[in-house]
C-alpha cells in the first residue's frame, strides 16, 4: 500500500538533453542584444490648478511596470523592456484616467489630469490619497513580487510563487489548504489579506488557504516579515502577506489554457471592461481539474505515501471587481468565489468559499483621507462518507466572519502623521455531524460557536531631516493597539520602530530597527475544547482556562540600493536582518489515550538571520537573486519541520517580446520533527536536507493588439524530499498557452 516517492515520476527528465539547452541559451543571448534600453518620465499635474499630484498611479499596461508619482508629481519608469505596443496609463483618485500609447508619448512631458466633476463648472480639489497600510507599518523587512514576475514564473499555485521569497516556506495541498510560514513560524501565525480583507480560516488551525485565488489574478504579492506589525499583524507572529488583485482600467480580455502532469487542466479567462469613464468591471475565472494519485492523509508519518489512482479534484475560482470613482473617492466591491471538490470512491468533500467586500476610500461628508471596509467571508465544507450497510455519514462545517474596518489618516503637522485603524470581527462556526440512511436521519452532534472582537490601533510617525546634511533623513514610529474579545480577554500592546535613510546620488542606505509585543487569541475550537473537557472532568492533567499566546520580537536590519550602472549590471539591492522572536503560552495539542490534551507551558525563542542580494539587469536582460536564512528554534516541539537553513538562487531572463526564463534552485537544511510512538511517548526525528529546482520557459509575441504566450514550466525537478508529508511533492510539468487582447 505504502510506497516510496519514486513512484510518482510521470516524466523522464533525461529527455532534456544538454545540447538543446546550449542552443537555447545562445538564442536567448542573441535576442537580448537586439533590444534597446529606455526610460519614461514625466510630471503629473492637475489640469485646473496646475498643482503637482502626489501619489498618482503610473502604469505601463503591457510591460506591467508601475510607479507612484513623488512629492512634486514626477515619475520615472526605468525599463529596458520597452515595447512599442505599450500603453501609458495615469490614474488618480477623483480624476479622469489618462491613457496614451507609448509610441505617441513625448518623454518627460507634462501630463495634465482632468478632475472628475459632478457639477459642471465646479472645480474639485482632491485631497484623497490611498492609504497603503503595508507602507505605513513600522519599519520591517519586506519583499514583493509584481505581475510580470508572477507571469514569468508560470505556476498556477500561489504557494509556488512564495518559493522565490527568502525565509518563507510553503506547505499543504488542495485538501488541507496551502499555507505559508514566515521565518520559522507556524502557518497559523501568518495573516493573509486579499485587498485588505483577512482570509485566515476559522477552523482549528486558523491558517489561510492560498488556493482561494489563482496566481494569474494577482497584481502584487507583498510579504511583511516580523512579529510586531501594528495595523495588520494581530496574532501574526511570523508576518503578514498582502495580496493585491488585478484591476485593469483599460479594455482587455484574455484566455489561457494549461495542461500538465497528473492529467491536470487549467482554463482561465479574464475580462476587463470600463463601463463608463468612472465605472470599471473586472472578471477573472479559473477552472482546474487534477488527479493527484496519492492520498492526503495528514497523520501519515514522514515519507509514508498511500497511492490511490481514483482521486479526482476540481477547482473553480471566480473573482469580480467593481470600481466606481466618485469625485472625491473610490467605491469598490469585490466578490471572490472558490469552489473545491474532491472525490474518491465512497468519499466526497465539497467546499464553497465566498468573500464579499465593499469599501469606500477617499473623502465624504467633509471627512478626508479615510477608508471604510465591510467584508463577509463564509466557507462551507461538506463531507459525505458512504459506508456499506450503515448509510452515509455527513459532516457540515460552516464558518462565517463579518469584519468592519475603519481607517483614517491625520496630518498633525508636516512632520507628524497618525494612522488609525478600528476593527470589529464577528467569528462564527457551525459543526454538524449526522448519519443518513434511506429510512432515517440522525444527528450525531452539533456545535455552534461564536465570538466577537473589537480592536483599535494606530501609528504615530515622526519624520525629519538631519540638520546641515540634507541627504540624511530619519523617521520614528510608535504603534499601539488595543484588543477586546467578548470573552473578557483584553490587551493593550505597543511597538516602536525607527529608520534612517542616507540618500546619496547613486546609493541609498537604510538601517532600521523595531521592537514590540503581539498577542494571539485562542481559536474558537481551542476555547470550545477546553470547555468540553472541563465538563466531563478530564482536566486533571491540563489547565482549565486557555490563555492568549504572547510574542516579543525585535529586529535590526539594513537595506541598501546601488544605482551605479556598470557593464555587468544596472543596479543592485541588498538586505540583511537579524531577528529574535520569543513566544509564550504556546498551545500544544497532543493526543493521549483516547483524548487530545492541550498543554500551555510553551516558551520558544526563534533567532535568525536573513540576507538577500538582488542584481537587476545583469547583461541588460538577466536578473539574479541570492538569499539565505538561518534559524535557531529553541523548542522544535512547538515548531516542527522548520529547516535550520534555507538558501535560494534565482536567475531570470526576460524580454518584452520573445523569450523569457525563470529558474530557481533552493536548498532546505535539516529540520526536526516529532511524532508519538505506540506507547504515546514523544519521539523526535531529524529530517534530512533537500534541494530542488523549478524552471519555467516561455515565449511571448504580439500580433497587433493580441499578445500570445507559450510557456512550459517544471517544478520539483530535483525532488529528493520525503519529509513534507502533507505537501504534494512530485515532478510536475506544464505547458500553457495564453492569449490577451488589448
Amino acid at each position, binding site marked *: 500500500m505504502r510506497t516510496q516517492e519514486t513512484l510518482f515520476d510521470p516524466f523522464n527528465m533525461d529527455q532534456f538533453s544538454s545540447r538543446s539547452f546550449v542552443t537555447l541559451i545562445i538564442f536567448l543571448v542573441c535576442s537580448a542584444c537586439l533590444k534597446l534600453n529606455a526610460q519614461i518620465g514625466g510630471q503629473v499635474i492637475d489640469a485646473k490648478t496646475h498643482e503637482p499630484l502626489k501619489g498618482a498611479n503610473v502604469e505601463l499596461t503591457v510591460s506591467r511596470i508601475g510607479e507612484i508619482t513623488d512629492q512634486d508629481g514626477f515619475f520615472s519608469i526605468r525599463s529596458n523592456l520597452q515595447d512599442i505596443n505599450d500603453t501609458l496609463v495615469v490614474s488618480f483618485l477623483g480624476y479622469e484616467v489618462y491613457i496614451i500609447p507609448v509610441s505617441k508619448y513625448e518623454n518627460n512631458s507634462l501630463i495634465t489630469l482632468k478632475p472628475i466633476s459632478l457639477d459642471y463648472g465646479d472645480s474639485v480639489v482632491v485631497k484623497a490619497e490611498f492609504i497603503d497600510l503595508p507602507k505605513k507599518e513600522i519599519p520591517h523587512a519586506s519583499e514583493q513580487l509584481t505581475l510580470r514576475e508572477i507571469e514569468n514564473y508560470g505556476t498556477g499555485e500561489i504557494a509556488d510563487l512564495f518559493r522565490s521569497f527568502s525565509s518563507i516556506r510553503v506547505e499543504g495541498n488542495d*485538501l488541507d489548504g496551502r499555507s505559508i510560514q514566515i521565518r520559522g513560524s507556524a502557518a497559523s501565525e501568518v495573516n493573509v489579506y486579499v485587498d485588505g480583507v483577512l482570509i485566515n480560516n476559522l477552523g482549528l488551525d486558523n491558517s489561510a488557504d492560498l488556493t482561494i485565488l489563482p496566481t494569474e489574478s494577482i497584481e502584487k504579492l507583498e510579504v511583511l516579515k516580523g512579529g510586531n506589525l501594528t495595523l495588520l499583524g494581530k496574532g501574526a507572529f511570523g508576518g503578514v502577506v498582502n495580496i493585491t488583485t488585478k484591476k485593469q482600467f483599460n479594455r482587455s480580455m484574455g484566455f489561457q489554457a494549461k495542461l500538465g502532469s497528473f492529467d491536470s487542466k487549467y482554463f482561465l479567462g479574464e475580462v476587463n471592461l470600463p463601463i463608463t469613464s468612472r465605472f470599471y468591471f473586472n472578471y477573472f475565472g479559473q477552472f482546474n481539474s487534477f488527479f493527484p494519485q496519492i*492520498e*492526503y*492523509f*495528514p*497523520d*501519515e508519518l514522514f515519507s509514508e505515501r*498511500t497511492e490511490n489512482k481514483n482521486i479526482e479534484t476540481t477547482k473553480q475560482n471566480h473573482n469580480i471587481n467593481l470600481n466606481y470613482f466618485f469625485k472625491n473617492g473610490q467605491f469598490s466591491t469585490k466578490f471572490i468565489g472558490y469552489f473545491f471538490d474532491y472525490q*474518491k470512491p*465512497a*468519499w466526497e468533500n465539497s467546499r464553497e468559499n465566498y468573500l464579499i467586500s465593499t469599501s469606500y476610500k477617499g473623502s465624504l*461628508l467633509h471627512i478626508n483621507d479615510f477608508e471604510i471596509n465591510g467584508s463577509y467571508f463564509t466557507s462551507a465544507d461538506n*463531507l459525505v*462518507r458512504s*459506508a456499506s450497510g*450503515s448509510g452515509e*455519514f455527513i*459532516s457540515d462545517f460552516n464558518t462565517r466572519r463579518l469584519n468592519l474596518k475603519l481607517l483614517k489618516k491625520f496630518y498633525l503637522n508636516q512632520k507628524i502623521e497618525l494612522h488609525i485603524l478600528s476593527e470589529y470581527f*464577528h467569528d*462564527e462556526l457551525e*459543526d454538524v*455531524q449526522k*448519519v443518513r440512511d434511506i429510512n432515517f436521519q440522525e444527528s*450525531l*452532534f*452539533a*456545535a*455552534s*460557536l*461564536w*465570538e*466577537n472582537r473589537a480592536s483599535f490601533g494606530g501609528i504615530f510617525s515622526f519624520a525629519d531631516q538631519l540638520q546641515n546634511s540634507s541627504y540624511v533623513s530619519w523617521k520614528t514610529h510608535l504603534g499601539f493597539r488595543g484588543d477586546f*474579545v*467578548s*470573552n473578557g480577554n483584553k490587551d493593550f500592546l505597543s511597538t516602536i520602530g525607527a529608520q534612517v535613510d542616507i540618500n546619496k546620488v547613486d546609493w541609498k542606505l537604510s538601517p532600521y530597527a523595531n521592537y514590540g509585543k503581539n498577542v494571539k487569541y485562542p481559536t*474558537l*475550537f481551542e*476555547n*470550545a*475544547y*477546553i*470547555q*468540553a*473537557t472541563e465538563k*466531563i472532568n478530564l482536566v486533571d492533567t491540563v489547565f482549565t482556562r486557555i490563555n492568549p499566546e504572547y510574542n516579543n520580537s525585535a529586529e535590526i536590519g539594513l537595506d541598501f540600493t546601488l544605482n551605479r550602472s556598470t557593464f555587468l549590471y544596472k543596479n543592485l539591492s541588498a538586505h540583511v536582518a537579524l531577528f529574535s522572536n520569543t513566544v509564550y503560552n504556546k498551545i500544544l495539542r497532543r*493526543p493521549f489515550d*483516547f*483524548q*487530545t490534551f492541550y498543554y500551555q507551558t510553551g516558551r520558544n525563542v526563534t533567532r535568525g538571520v536573513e540576507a538577500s542580494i538582488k542584481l537587476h539587469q545583469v547583461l541588460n536582460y538577466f536578473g539574479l537573486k541570492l538569499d539565505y536564512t538561518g534559524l535557531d528554534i529553541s523548542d522544535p516541539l512547538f515548531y516542527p519541520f522548520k529547516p535550520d537553513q534555507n538558501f535560494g538562487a534565482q536567475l531570470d531572463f526576460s524580454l518584452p517580446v520573445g523569450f523569457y526564463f525563470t529558474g530557481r534552485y533552493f536548498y532546505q537544511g535539516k529540520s526536526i520533527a516529532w511524532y508519538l510512538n*505506540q506507547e*504515546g511517548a514523544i519521539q523526535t526525528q531529524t529530517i534530512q536536507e533537500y534541494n530542488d529546482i523549478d524552471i519555467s520557459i516561455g515565449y511571448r509575441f504580439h500580433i497587433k493588439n493580441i499578445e500570445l504566450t507559450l510557456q512550459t514550466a517544471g517544478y520539483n525537478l530535483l525532488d529528493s524530499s520525503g519529509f513534507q508529508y502533507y505537501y504534494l511533492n512530485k515532478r510536475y510539468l506544464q505547458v500553457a498557452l495564453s492569449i490577451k487582447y488589448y
Partner: protein
Amino acid sequence: MITFRFILIIFLILVVGGCDLDKYTGYNYEGESLIETARITGNVTNTFTGTPILRATLKFGNLITYTDGEGDYLLVYPLGTGDERNRPITVVVSRPNYFQIETEIVVYPDKNIHDFALIYAAPIIESSSLELISQSEAICYATILDYQGVDDIENVEGVFTYEGEGVQTVVQIPLNEDIRFSPNRAQFISNVERISPLYGDLITKVYQITVLDKSGYADTRDFIRPF
C-alpha cells in the same frame, strides 16, 4: 445633511435591533460534543465451534482492547483526520493457540460493528487412557483433534515418572498414530512399561500427554492413572 444622518441612524437601529444582539456582542464556546470518538463493538468467536472466545486481544491501530466472558468487546476510538478521510487502520485480533487475524478497517463516526472468528490453531487432546495388559506392561491411548488435519501433528508424547533404587526419572514416551477416525481426529498409541529394567517402577499417579504440531502450537493435558 440632517435628513441623511437621520435616515442612517434609523437604519442602524433597525439593523441592530433586527439581529440577535448577543450573538454579535457575546461569545459561546459550548458545543454538544467536540471530542469526536467512535465506538467499535463486536464479538470474537471460534470458527469451528461458534463459541465465544474470552480474553482475545484486539488491537485497533495503537489502541488495545479485550473480549469479555461472552466474547464481546467495546472500544472508544478517537477519530483523527486520517479516519475522516477514510484512511484504513490495521486491526490485529489474537488469542494464544489461535491463528492471528490481521485486517484493515475504516472507522466511521457513531457505531462500528466488527465481528471476528478465529481459527483454532493448536491440536487438542480429547481423551487418553492407560490400560493394563499384563503385570509389567500397559498401553497408553490418546485421541487428538487437530483442525488443520492429523498430518499437521508433529509428535505426541506421554510423560511418566519411574522410581528405582531411590532415584526418580521422568521418561517421555512417543505415541504413534493408530486409528484415523477422520481427517483431523486420530488415536495415538504406545506401550508403557510398568516395571522398567532401566528406570524402575512406574510410580506416577498422574501422567501427562503433550502434543506438538508442525507450526509449533502445542497442547498438554494431565490424566489420572487408573490402576
